[in-house]
């Protein structure tokens, strides 16, 4: 199974600032995704990180707010821009090793915006 490392694991951020979360996988994977989990809620997909091209965003999420990079098959970043307290969430990176296979998650990045 893929081993996924996320950084930072936790951070407290000032309102109006931006933070970039890194996701590193120990093997090449075909698909990478970013999810958000607001306090006490379930997970919601933000976007699919596409290698070498622009990410595909879900309804309600836009590139200006959540820019994503994926320069290769093992690494991706998610930036949360111009943060507000409503952005306080756990952000999780996930990977799929192929169609119809297990999808693995990282440990998550817990952001608190003050």
């Amino acid at each position, binding site marked *: 199974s893929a081993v996924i490392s996320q950084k930072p694991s936790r951070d407290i951020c000032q309102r109006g600032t931006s933070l970039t979360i890194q996701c590193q996988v120990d093997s090449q994977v075909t698909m990478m995704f970013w999810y958000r989990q607001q306090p006490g809620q*379930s*997970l919601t997909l933000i976007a699919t990180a596409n290698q070498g091209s622009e990410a595909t965003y879900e309804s309600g999420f836009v590139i200006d707010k959540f820019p994503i990079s994926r320069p290769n098959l093992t690494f991706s970043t998610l930036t949360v821009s111009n943060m507000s307290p409503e952005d306080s969430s756990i952000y*999780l990176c996930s990977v799929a090793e192929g169609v*119809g296979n297990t999808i693995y998650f990282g*440990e998550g990045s817990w952001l608190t915006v003050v």
Partner: protein
Amino acid sequence: SQQGEEDPQALSIQEGENATMNCSYKTSINNLQWYRQNSGRGLVHLILIRSNEREKHSGRLRVTLDTSKKSSSLLITASRAADTASYFCATAVFGNEKLTFGTGTRLTIIP
């Protein structure tokens, strides 16, 4: 919007008892995956069950899938204090690996 609903939302049982959680979804799926999340942490994958399967086992875990009713259940036998966590089902449709999550069940095992 969330596709899946989980029932119950919260469950407390004595250590050693069995715990059953149910998940319902709305559309045809390729597979359904169950995850565990300890407080504030990432998701641990438990079991994947495909649409052409009806039951799968892994250690103390048993998952069933009824595609005609669009529902799945997760049974944890002989529960332990370490099983205390939130449990989520997540579905993927054919040709798409994006997961749609259920609302989750918060399981508490009382020692």
